[in-house]
């Protein structure tokens, strides 16, 4: 049995010395960040109608209710923004499941206590409010975008 152990030992040693872990990603960063700067213009609505604001980033344009899209995994959503009458606000999303295309990034206003009562008040776009813009993220990306919320002029609602 001793010689079998010797065979095993030789094979195991050969094996250990001969290999590493193989391929690895070129980019050691394991995430990407998207910093969203929200700029508010014109007068805010009455305070009691601003239950809060949220930023939602959709992988695909939404086809049903916003909440439905979020629960189906199509969108990331920020914590509730409870600030009032501010000029700007920064929100950061960190992504690890990459690469990723975000095709519809919006600011949503919850105007009643019922969480389904939401309205889109700002959309990331290429300067034309009716045309949402896409942003692509890959490992190591640190991207900054700006969304304008004009309390007097809301973008088209998705549905």
């Amino acid at each position, binding site marked *: 049995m001793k010689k079998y152990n010797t065979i095993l030992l030789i094979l195991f040693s050969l094996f250990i010395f*001969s290999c590493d872990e*193989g*391929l690895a990603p*070129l980019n050691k960063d394991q995430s990407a960040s998207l910093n969203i700067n929200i700029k508010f213009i014109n007068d805010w609505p009455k305070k009691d109608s601003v239950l809060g604001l949220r930023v939602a980033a959709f992988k695909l344009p939404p086809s049903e209710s916003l909440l439905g899209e979020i629960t189906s995994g199509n969108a990331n959503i920020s914590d509730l923004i409870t600030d009032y009458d501010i000029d700007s606000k920064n929100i950061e999303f960190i992504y690890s499941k990459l690469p990723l295309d975000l095709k519809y990034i919006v600011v949503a206003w919850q105007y009643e206590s019922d969480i389904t009562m939401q309205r889109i008040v700002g959309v990331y776009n290429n300067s034309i409010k009716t045309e949402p813009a896409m942003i692509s993220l890959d490992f190591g990306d640190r991207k900054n975008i700006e969304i304008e919320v004009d309390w007097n002029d809301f973008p088209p609602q998705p549905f």
Partner: protein
Amino acid sequence: MISHRNLFKYIFLLLLITSISVIADVKGVIVDNDNKEPIIGARVSVLNTLLGDITDRKGYFFIKSSSDSLLLEIIYAGYEKKTIVANSKDSIIINLERKTYHSNELIVSANKKTESIQNVPISVSLIKSEDFSTRNISSIDYALQYVPGVEVNQDNVSIRGSSGFSFGVGTRTIFLQDGFPLLSADNNDIKFDIIPILFIDRVEVIKGAGSALYGTSALGGVINVLTAKPSTNPLIRMRLYSGLYDTPKYEQWNWSDNNLTNKGLDLAYSQKFGDYGIMGSVSLFSRDSYKRYDKSDRISLFLKQLYDFSDYTNFELTANYSTSVTDDWVYWNGLDSALIPPTNTDESIAITSNKLAISTNVKHIINDISFLNFKLGVFNTYFSNMLDADNSEYRESTGNTYFFETQYSNSINDENSLISGIESRINQVNSFTYGDNTQTILGAYTQLENKSISSLIATVGIRTDQELLDTIDTKIQFSPKFGLNYSINDDITLRGSYGRGFRAASLAERFASVQFQGFNVIANTKLKSEISQSFEIGCSYDIINSNEYLNIDISGFYNKYEDLIEPTFEENSQAVIKFMNIIEAEISGVEIDLTFETEKNFTFKSSLTYLNPKNIVENKDLKYRSNYLWYNTLNYQLLPFELQFDYRYKSKYNEIDDILGLTIKNHDLKIDAHILDISLSVYSDLFDTKTKFTMNVKNALNYYYLEMVGNMAPIRFLNFQIESEL
């Protein structure tokens, strides 16, 4: 001239005479003398005749006889040969003594006849049924990865470097089930998923050109899957397995929050009722895959029926069916996101694929020294990506291969035996992708084996094939073979062989007009057949003592290829591919196989293959070929436990298509492969059934390597399997 009516009369008369002459049967069971376990696959022959049987999964055999007593010879690898006189009255139990050393396996594919593996002049490897169980193999391509000198790159099988990467079309290895070819009419590719895993008795892999007996496609070798025979007693088998992929080490590659599993169920039934035998199985398989957009679901069915019209004539009818829906993964998004497809991929597209093979085999023993074998069958394949026909990436094809072969075998005398046959293969394709085309290949072969010189077996054979196709004037192919096998003594055998191989270009290679995921394949209707000349010399040496056995087998080989067909990127184009006869190539190399066994159930196998694959035209290595393949298996049985390690090393490719870089990110990565698989099995007789529990880990070290450009090989996978037999 015999009219059809008279012919039927003669056949009827023949059947009547042969059935009247039956008086009694001889039946029995072969068991191991030590543990009384049945021996599966032992050959029982009636001496000096062609009558015989192979024991079923419960060790039973059954021979029809017209005599009261028969002289039987029983042969099985690892056991002493036994000769006994059996009478036909009672079922007999035959005990076989284990040899203290290994003995030769029996094979049928090298020369289309049953013979000892030691007596053939070329290299042969075997995959046994137990290997499928221990390694949790659900498809034959995975089993082939452990065969010395064989590489499997996705669906391409390369024996000793015969194939590189050809987008899944035009195999250079013929793939057979019980001698019936299972290559699709359009792509001429191998459909592995149609084979019933639970009914595989063994797989024989013949290395080197085999066109002298098998015709087109046997350029690099032959893979023949031999299915089992129906069990004399009812046999029910079940295999249930489920496994889980590990989370990738790098977060960049972790694309799913869910557990990614592969799972499957196989059920099989087999029984012989007198002259009639039936075998049937159903297999379900579902794969999440470690890659996104690589899911697959499959159902496979198998039915084989046998009927002995007499002790001289038997009939087999076999049907294989498989249907699958598979995602259309082609290559990665890039190394940083290696397990997902390119970001612009439409991941809603899936390939629906159906395959149906129906084959018949009639064997008629004419007399004690000769028999006839008729094979007739059809292999239907269909695939579609289910897009609208006006979509530029729409792919669809239906193909039928009609196959017919008649083989005549004659043991002329003690020293000479002759095998001759005629064969036709018609590939008929109706396809949006490949057009409507028919390719006919007619062949005839003969082979003589001579044993007139003591310890020397000489084989000489020739085959001629003619391809008929509208678009090209084809040449008649002559494929000769020569072989010598010389036993210096009981321990040392020398062998040498020459064979010519050819492969008629597939209809897909000639007529493809298709776009997919950035590639555009265009037709080349003038493609010629590719040719190979294959030389091999080898030596097998046994070193035996009372309780250990060591076999060393060394072979040197040289293969020359002409008009080799390779997918070629058109100049000044990004990804336009055309199949071209562009390469003259030669592949030389050495293969060393070592097998060490002890009586204490310790087995170690190691094979090292060195390949020097040269593109003569460009004076560099052939693309997508490794220089070194080193495969090792270590098995230890301490019943009821069995532990097995499989370690494989494949050196990186020296040459790939650089132009792929225009389509595939990080295409130029090259890396050696180190793959360790570990299996632990426990045998049990739970609920009066033979049950085997197996846990195996594939790619146990989670080593990240490539199986092809832009394709990460499977990551670590943990699997559990229960296999039971009633």
